[in-house]
């Protein structure tokens, strides 16, 4: 039994050491930029930029094949951060700064088909078959995917409902 324990331990340690050395010699230099870019993106995989998700989009931005302004839900803030990370200058006037929007379902038109919440990347739509759906505003990123899928056109994007917790002072108007 001692022999079994000893040989198995030795085998494990030996193979582990060999793999460790191999990993040192065969290490692949991966650009850390891709990970940093991906962290800045919203991560909701909405696909509005035309890439299948935030991962491929981050790779494209890091490689320089996509502009830093590619993320519509991220808006100007994300574009600014990406530009400063990558050290590129960008014309931010082209990025329209929209107030945050969330999806809203008109209950009168909803037929409870569940298509929108199957599509929602952040699970922000609640409901069930033949039940009127509703949007959970805290989770909605306003990506607008559900709008395209609704067969009765009952979803629209609009400013989130104002409550005591999200109300802010209006920006003072310039004199």
């Amino acid at each position, binding site marked *: 039994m001692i022999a079994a324990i000893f040989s*198995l331990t030795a085998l494990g340690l030996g193979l582990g050491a*060999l793999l460790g050395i191999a990993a040192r010699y065969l290490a692949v230099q991966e650009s850390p930029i891709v990970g940093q870019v991906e962290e800045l993106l919203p991560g909701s995989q909405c696909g509005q930029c035309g890439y299948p998700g935030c991962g491929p989009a981050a790779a494209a931005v890091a490689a320089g094949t996509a502009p830093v302004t590619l993320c519509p839900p991220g808006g100007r803030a994300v574009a600014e951060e990406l530009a400063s990370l990558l050290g590129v200058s960008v014309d931010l006037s082209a990025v329209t700064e929209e107030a945050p929007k969330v999806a809203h379902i008109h209950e009168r038109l909803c037929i409870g088909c569940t298509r929108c919440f199957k599509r929602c990347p952040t699970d922000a739509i609640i409901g069930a078959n033949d039940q009127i759906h509703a949007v959970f505003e805290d989770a909605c990123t306003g990506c607008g995917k559900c709008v395209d899928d609704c067969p009765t056109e009952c979803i629209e994007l609009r400013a989130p409902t104002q409550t005591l917790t999200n109300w802010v002072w209006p920006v003072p108007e310039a004199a």
Partner: protein
Amino acid sequence: MTEYLMLILATALVNNVVLVKFLGLCPFMGVSNKLDSALGMGLATTFVLTLAAGASWLLQELVLEPLNIGFLRILTFILVIAAVVQFTEMVVRKLSPTLYQVLGIFLPLITTNCAVLGVALLNVQEHHGFLESLVYGFGSALGFTLVMVLFAGLRERLALAQVPAAFAGTPIALVVAGLLSLAFMGFAGLA
């Protein structure tokens, strides 16, 4: 020399691991959608199988036999195979990032490819020498690669064929696999 050639022929065609012994069916069905990835998978498995056959022979003769701990055979073989697969993954990642992306999850899954463990155990069972073990492993892997490429080619044509709805997709692929297996039975009289 002739006996090694015969051994390669016998393992690759007559006793094909996939179609005659029915080992390694997981990558056979999983990675045979496209010719490129099937060939890549076959080459990666060839590398792993040959190395694992040699390493497991050394392990059997130098450690398990002298210490009389044959009951650890499967455990230690799996350990060695896992290490070899890990090594292969590093090599593939270094040499061909595209192949690494195409193979994806199936690369680490070579560990659980029963053909790899099966060949190592068959080597012990049939008391092969070191060189014989290597040739046996290489021949089996050659057969595996051949079948993968053949099957991938068939499936690429199959994708365009008009198949009854009930058979579309995996069922017709399994039927084709069965027919291919029948065809390989024709090699039985060769050796």
